[in-house]
């Protein structure tokens, strides 16, 4: 994977993430999510995006993080992952930035396994570390039959 390109940054708690901007369809602030009982834990529920049903992914759960902010996520990133439209629930969205290969590093070995599956590397920026998410992996590993 080419590690340079335009990335959308977003944050979950104190972490900053980057995800490829070309696959992002839109950002949606008022997405009302209907809980689907007995669905996988990482799936918050299902939302209506102008007549289309999209699953809403709880990104905290997906990345194995604890939501310590004590608040609901405020914004959803509508994204195409492997041909499927999904909504990623995140705390806030930053800017779209262009990244160079030079700042890229593979994930450190002490990275938790849950995140390692999704995070393909880190961009060391001057002010912060940007964890890079592989958008194709987001719906992978969500097992439909998991209770």
């Amino acid at each position, binding site marked *: 994977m080419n590690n340079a390109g335009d990335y959308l940054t977003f944050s979950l708690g104190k972490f900053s993430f980057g995800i490829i901007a070309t696959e992002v369809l839109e950002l949606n602030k008022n997405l009302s999510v209907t809980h*689907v*009982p007995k*669905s996988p834990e990482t*799936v918050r529920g*299902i*939302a*209506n995006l102008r*007549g289309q049903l*999209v699953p809403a992914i709880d990104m905290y759960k997906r990345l194995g993080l604890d939501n310590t902010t004590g608040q609901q996520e405020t914004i959803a990133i509508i994204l195409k992952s492997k041909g499927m439209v999904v909504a990623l629930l995140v705390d806030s969205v930053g800017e779209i930035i262009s990244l160079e290969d030079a700042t890229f590093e593979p994930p450190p070995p002490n990275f938790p396994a849950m995140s390692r599956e999704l995070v393909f590397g880190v961009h060391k920026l001057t002010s912060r570390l940007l964890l890079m998410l592989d958008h194709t992996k987001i719906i992978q590993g969500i097992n439909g039959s998991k209770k």
Partner: protein
Amino acid sequence: MDNTDDILVEFIIEAREILDQLDLDFVLLEKTPDDKKLVGNIFRAIHTLKGSSGFFAFKRLEKVTHAGETLLGKIRDGSLALDKQKTSLLLVTLDAVREIVAAIEATHAEPEGDNAQLIEDLLNLANGVTLADKKLNEAVQAIPLPKDLLNLANGVALADKKLNEAEQAIPLPIEPAKEAIAQILEAAIPTPPPDEPATVATNSATSAPPAAAQELSVETLQEIAQPVKVNLDLLDKLMNLVSEMVLARNRLLPFAADFGDHHFSGAVRTIDLLTQELQERMMMTRMQPISQIWSKFPRLIRDVSNECGKQVNLVQDGEDTELDRTLLDAIRDPLVHIIRNCIDHGIETPEQRAHLGKPATGQVLLKASHENGMVVIQIADDGGGIDFDLVCQKAIEKKLLTAEHALTLTDIQLLEYIFLPGFSTKSVVTNLSGRGVGMDVVKTNIAKIGGSIEIDSPRGLGTNICLKIPLTLAVMPALFVRCENERYAIPQNSIVEMVRLDLANDSSGLEDFYGLPVFRLRNKLAPLLLLNHQLNLSQKFPGKDAVINIALLQSGGIQFGLLVDEVLNMQEVVVKPLGPLFSGSTDFAGATILGNGSVALILDVAGMANNSGLVAKIQARPLNPVQIAAEVTVEQIPMLLFELPGLEFTAIPLECVDRLESFTVEKIQKNGKREVVQYGSGLMHLLRLNEYIDGASPTPVKSQEPLSVIAHYVNGLPMGLVVGKVHDIIQVPQIMQETNSQQRGLKGCVILNGRVINVIDVQEILRMRRIQDNEIMVYPDNEQSEVAVIDWKMVQ
């Protein structure tokens, strides 16, 4: 053009679609040869093609596809591995089929001439290819050869290589194959001689049609007005838009009424009318009468029954029943399968039927009707029914169940095996059936469109298959309920009724039945599921004095109550799939978007019944469901309440009461010791009930009141039971309180509204009467001997 032309055009379109898909599938299959599902798909597609060609009597096509299917069948059950050669062979078979289809399209517009050629080919095939499947395989391998010299060379190498591989499953003689190749070589461009079966097959498959068809197809394609194929997605979107528009109009209407502006009202009215018409027309694009597919069946039945040497008559009922076009397409193949099964497996040969005392001509009934927002299609035959012993035997052979286990299974449980892929009771693979494709395809196809299938097959009496299909896929009425602050929709077609139960006032409340909460509904027990438990929302259980809302649901023959927090409204909903992330959820059938833009989940009633273990619990009892139902529910029976001297509340089962009569005392006459009255043209013997029942007083002497008489027919002769006064018809539980010691003439008693009601035992009273009579009369007359017969049965 006659009307079969339309169907033909449809067939050609369908064949083209299948072929295109098969091309893709084969290529994909080559990459993943282990994909069993894909092989199954291809197999079914070819099977469908064969089936369709079968009922157009395209024998040539049928034979080619049959051969292809045979090879695929071998691949499917793993006795042959798929390699590149086989794939290319199968692809060439497809080409051959495609050319035949093109030829059919061409000759369809052609005058007589070409048809004769076709018939000749067909006859040659029919004469020459009385081959077993193995030889047909050979024919398949011969098909690719004449394509061109290159192919031919490959073909030789291929055939040789194949033989060298020594596939023991198919001992393929080298010489015939080489001979065939040599002959084709000789006959490279001209038509090969039609005396050699393999070449006939190849000839018909490849060389003849392209020459004729290629020029013609260009013209004919333009001549035949193809029906416009509209993408279903587009149609769905239009449908959604129209529904939205209807809603928007509904919002507009009250404004017009409030404003009272003439121009505005006029404009709104126009929009109103237009919208309405738009909606109706939109619906019409989707709804079509079922006769569209049924019209093909008489021919199908004729052909299939001829092939099986059986006589079958088709009865159709309800052919104007309309349903959604997509559904119509989806049920056509299942129906064809079922009808073929009916004739091939169900209906016996005329000789067998005569032997069984059935009319020589078997009947197949095809009936469609609307029921509870579903289309019910019934396919019934008066044949031998499903051979359960054979099903059982095959299931054991296929190691699907053990012999010991098989003994414990009921017929109904055995039915499940019929739906397993690859299951067939036919030991010989025929053109019609025996490959084990069929009922599993039927079930998958029906399930795919949200329908269900029920089979009822009493041994020896025929089979009754009932398909329940939703009217349309797009919109369905649903009831909204609330549970833990979330709304859920229940499809209306599974709702039987809504019940509001006040547990504080209801003496019985919720009870426990084999670990399952149950509630009483009109004195019948019904199992109860709690929606919040089912969906893991909470563990709340209604308190002793709660008022609960229950939706009584029906799924697969099982009725159960679903406890919800609140019943909201009824609404038409557009069903949308939940998508792959929720594929593991069997509790939901989909979701729908509400007017306010939020999403509500639609419950899958059958899935929920399964998940809860309710179905398993009921199926686990190796009784038939009717008996289980009888066990769970307390049946009520109607009785006639009357008075006897000394016994105020006495009852007789209503089924024993044929008439109520009243006679004045003067009418009573004597026949020996017995009292009789003239009744109709004959005599009715009177029986004073109080003389036969413990606790009743003797008849008051010289009472001048008219006698109330219950006429009860015994073997066609009336017996008058004299009672005091007739009150009313009452409903009492069938199970009676046991009286401590049996009272003479009484079966037992029931308690109704705090009163003890004695139920008389008519049989015993008649028996007492007979004994009495016998003591007196040495020579019993006819009537008594008939009564005696009944009593003897009773004693048994």
